[in-house]
């Protein structure tokens, strides 16, 4: 049962992470090309730092850091009278009401919390990559388009939203579709973060079971469970490819790219 639910977990992760990381990337790219220098440093710094650190190291570090950071803040707010140190040797101790989630919360809240931390981490990591792609895409829109907009008297902001953003997607799409594929394949990292995803259940259910502890004893079936995962991921990326192909066609329409030119000639 948990096995089937975990497919939903993975799909939910993708459904939530994709738009969130896209918006992270959009803001990152916007900041990176801002004319206000500190904002531009911020955007470029975010993209450079996250892109330069291995995903796994970032995942392992960030989830713990984020969790302890939140608990530390809650602790400072809710228990100002607390005198014991928070770090006692290797222990990380905060007062009961600063626990996130509270100890007394039912297990599902703990799971939702863990899942949200994972989604946030995924979004930050993939947002940086998306930011880089979008930054490049914004710079790829022919300069003449912006000049024309300015000649018509549009402000910088108007030119950005009305001319640049609608046209940049076709340049961003190859990079973004690549990212989407990588994101799909990165979902098993959830397993590393302690979320019970399909890899966890494939290993748990595939492990050999002795008759004393189960009604369905079997030997080592992990190979078959992992084979099923392989097929699932392959099928999923195939469907994605088909959909992305269609989007590319649609976005190429009327663009000064090779694809757009081919469409114009065919018509």
């Amino acid at each position, binding site marked *: 049962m948990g096995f089937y639910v975990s497919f939903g977990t993975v799909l939910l992760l993708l459904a939530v992470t994709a738009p969130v990381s896209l918006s992270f990337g959009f803001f990152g790219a916007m900041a990176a090309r801002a004319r206000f220098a500190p904002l531009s440093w911020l955007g470029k710094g975010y993209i450079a730092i996250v892109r330069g650190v291995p995903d796994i190291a970032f995942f392992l570090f960030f989830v713990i850091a984020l969790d302890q950071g939140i608990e530390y803040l809650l602790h400072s707010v*809710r228990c100002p009278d607390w005198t*014991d140190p928070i770090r006692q040797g290797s222990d990380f101790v905060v007062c009961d009401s600063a626990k996130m989630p509270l100890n007394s919360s039912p297990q599902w809240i703990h799971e939702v919390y863990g899942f949200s931390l994972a989604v946030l981490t995924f979004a930050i990591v993939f947002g940086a990559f998306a930011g880089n792609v979008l930054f490049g895409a914004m710079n790829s829109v022919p300069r003449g388009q912006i000049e024309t907009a300015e000649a018509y008297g549009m402000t910088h902001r108007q030119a950005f939203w009305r001319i640049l953003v609608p046209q940049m997607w076709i340049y961003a799409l190859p990079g973004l579709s690549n990212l989407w594929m990588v994101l799909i394949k990165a979902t098993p990292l959830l397993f590393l973060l302690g979320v019970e995803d399909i890899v966890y259940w494939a290993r748990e259910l595939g492990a050999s079971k002795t008759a004393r502890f189960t009604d369905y004893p079997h030997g080592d079936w992990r190979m078959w469970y992992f084979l099923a995962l392989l097929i699932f991921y392959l099928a999923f990326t195939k469907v994605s490819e088909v959909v992305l192909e269609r989007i590319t066609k649609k976005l190429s329409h009327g663009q000064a790219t090779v694809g757009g030119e081919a469409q114009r000639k065919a018509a």
Partner: protein
Amino acid sequence: MKNLILSTAVLALTAGVAAAETVRLGTEGAYPPYNFLNDAGEVDGFERELGDELCKRAELTCEWVTNDWDSIIPNLTSGNYDAIIAGMSITDERKEVVDFTQGYTQPSPSAYAALAEGVDVNSAAVAAQSSTIQSGHVATTGATLVEFPTPDETVAAVKSGEVDAVLSDKDYLNPIVAEGGLVFIGDVYLGGGIGMAFRKSDADLRGKFDAAIASMKADGSLNALLDKWEIEGKF
């Protein structure tokens, strides 16, 4: 203001259950007969029954959580759960990081198992679960140690011929050997019995469970549980 909203939200989420003190018990869920996930996907086994009984005696509400063996101690010290009850032997190395209750099993034998007799455990390739007393022991012998993250994978490695033998708790190997395929080729006594582990800063909670274990030893109910799950050694 933001904090107010946040705390209200958290309160609303947890209203109604905040009354009793809740203790979260961390276990591995892959180590029968001590702890495993049953067909319904719930934690089951000797430690499940033991833990539930201890919580009843200590008048605490308990919640079960599973965690990978490798990160089971770090996740305790960082506060993801409040106690480890996962077939963890009491050793001096672990005592440097966590505090144990008194043992709820006797120091139990570990056993080597192989496909056939005649394997020299001092020179063969031996599988053990990583960060266990067994892997520590194999490293001190002349054998080649091959570590795996879960106990099941150590057994699978012997069956597939990847290694010559496996060293694990005898209670874990018993039902596997009984099913055929593997034979025991020798015992070795390691560790100081199995206990529950707590954060060093959590002496109060540890005291409560320690007292509950003592009371179960005194009235013989612990022995009955050990019998039921066929674990060697009595108090």
